[in-house]
């Protein structure tokens, strides 16, 4: 579920911000090497907060930021609010 949303929103932001068709993401894809810069990534995180209702980057206490798409999905899954 979260993976689908992430993939969709990533494609949306990529097209708007970087231009052109978004690359296909695998778990090992390095986020900052996909062609999306810091600003694009910031927009992605904001869009995801609107979509999912939470922002793990602000909430989480981990030292390390996710670097790959697989890590990003796991990061969002780990911090998802418990289903009501």
């Amino acid at each position: 579920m979260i993976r689908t949303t992430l993939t969709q929103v990533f494609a949306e932001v990529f097209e708007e911000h970087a231009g052109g068709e978004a690359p296909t993401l695998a778990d090992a894809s390095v986020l900052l090497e996909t062609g999306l810069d810091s600003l694009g990534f910031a927009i992605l995180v904001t869009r995801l907060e609107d979509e999912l209702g939470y922002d793990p980057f602000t909430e989480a206490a981990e030292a390390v930021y996710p670097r790959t798409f697989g890590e990003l999905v796991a990061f969002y899954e780990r911090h998802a609010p418990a289903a009501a």
Partner: protein
Amino acid sequence: MDVRAPKVPTLRERLAARAPVSEVLPGLRTDALLAEAADAPDVLPSVALRVRDVRTFVRALSVLDGRAETILLASPGTPLETVRAQAERAGCTHVFGPGADLETLAELRALGQPGAAPPTRWVLTTSGTTAEPKLVGHTLGSLTRTTTSDATRGRTATWGLLYEPTRYAGLQVVLQSLLGGSRLVAPDPGAPLHERVAVLAVRGCTHLSATPTLWRRLLMTARSEELPLRQITLGGEIADQTLLDRLTNAFPGARIAHIFASTEAGVGFSVTDGKAGFPAAFLEVPPAGIAIRVREGRLLVRNEAVAGAYLGEGTRFRDDEGFVDTGDAVELRGERVLFLGRASGVINVGGQKVHPERVEAVLVAHPGVAVAKVGQRRSPITGALVMAEVQPAPGTDPAALKRELRAHCAALLAPYERPASVKVTGRLATNGAGKIVRRGEAA
């Protein structure tokens, strides 16, 4: 107004005082640098430096300081014609750099004359992005007020340069490494970040200065944890607690300092206790001989060593007691003074300043927009993002308008200025003068 210091040691004299022979940049040693810098006439013309290469930049500064009346540090990305106009405002007769009037140090030396060497004024440009950058005069003394020259410690340090060296923050890194007896590593600014990180790691970078946005990106970059960092410096944006905690965890051996600095005020002060904001005690006992004050929720600082007006316009930014209004909104919370953002409403997107009025002007220039309001939203990645609300002109389709505005903004605004989201709403509040009511602003 002129507050040039009477007789400050020149860059050459201060370089000679560092370890007799050491490496300044990979492959450039102090003896070679000083030998080249010593060989010039007493007086050189005032020049604007427009160079990208750090080695050339350092060599030119070493030759010019104490010989030219003015050195303007132009951003290498600025078009040559714009640099010429800035040079004229600053009283410089030539532009030095690739494709400019003077391309080599030999050409510069050939213009020299015998005479009394003037003290050199270093002119920096403010990072105004939309407005014409302002010019601020410094001296080597005012620029190095917080530079440490402990050569025993300095010799073990390797500074990494991720900033443009002509900007205030980048120049601090260059001068600290030069005068502190350290080495400087300057990876190609055009290379992707992971490649620059690899260069810094291979060269053993121990000291690194960057904006909070860049630090967040570094934390997302493979192998950044391999950097043998002992000193982490953050500046140019608000350093939040989350980021400070992450850096503490990622680089447990490093000292972390977030610095507050503005081009107008000269360097302000640094905070090294790992907490966001600064201790309220700084208001009573200020660090390093400056003075700090909070007036009407804004931060004021005093640094005697800096001229109190912009060059060529006479606009004074210093009050009668010598305080400079930094324009930063602050709040006292418990024992801490916390930064809230720019009092003017200017939005800091990853270190780039965005004027909401300018973005609003671009939005209302679209025929489908009746009223536009631009604000910001907190971002855990770039600190803030630009957000817009627009009231459509009668008969406009909201969905089509959103798409059109995206293209419209892409054509007229820099990427960081473009609204990250545009909300089409029914009616926006305006004040008596028909102007938008922005948060924190008297209507």
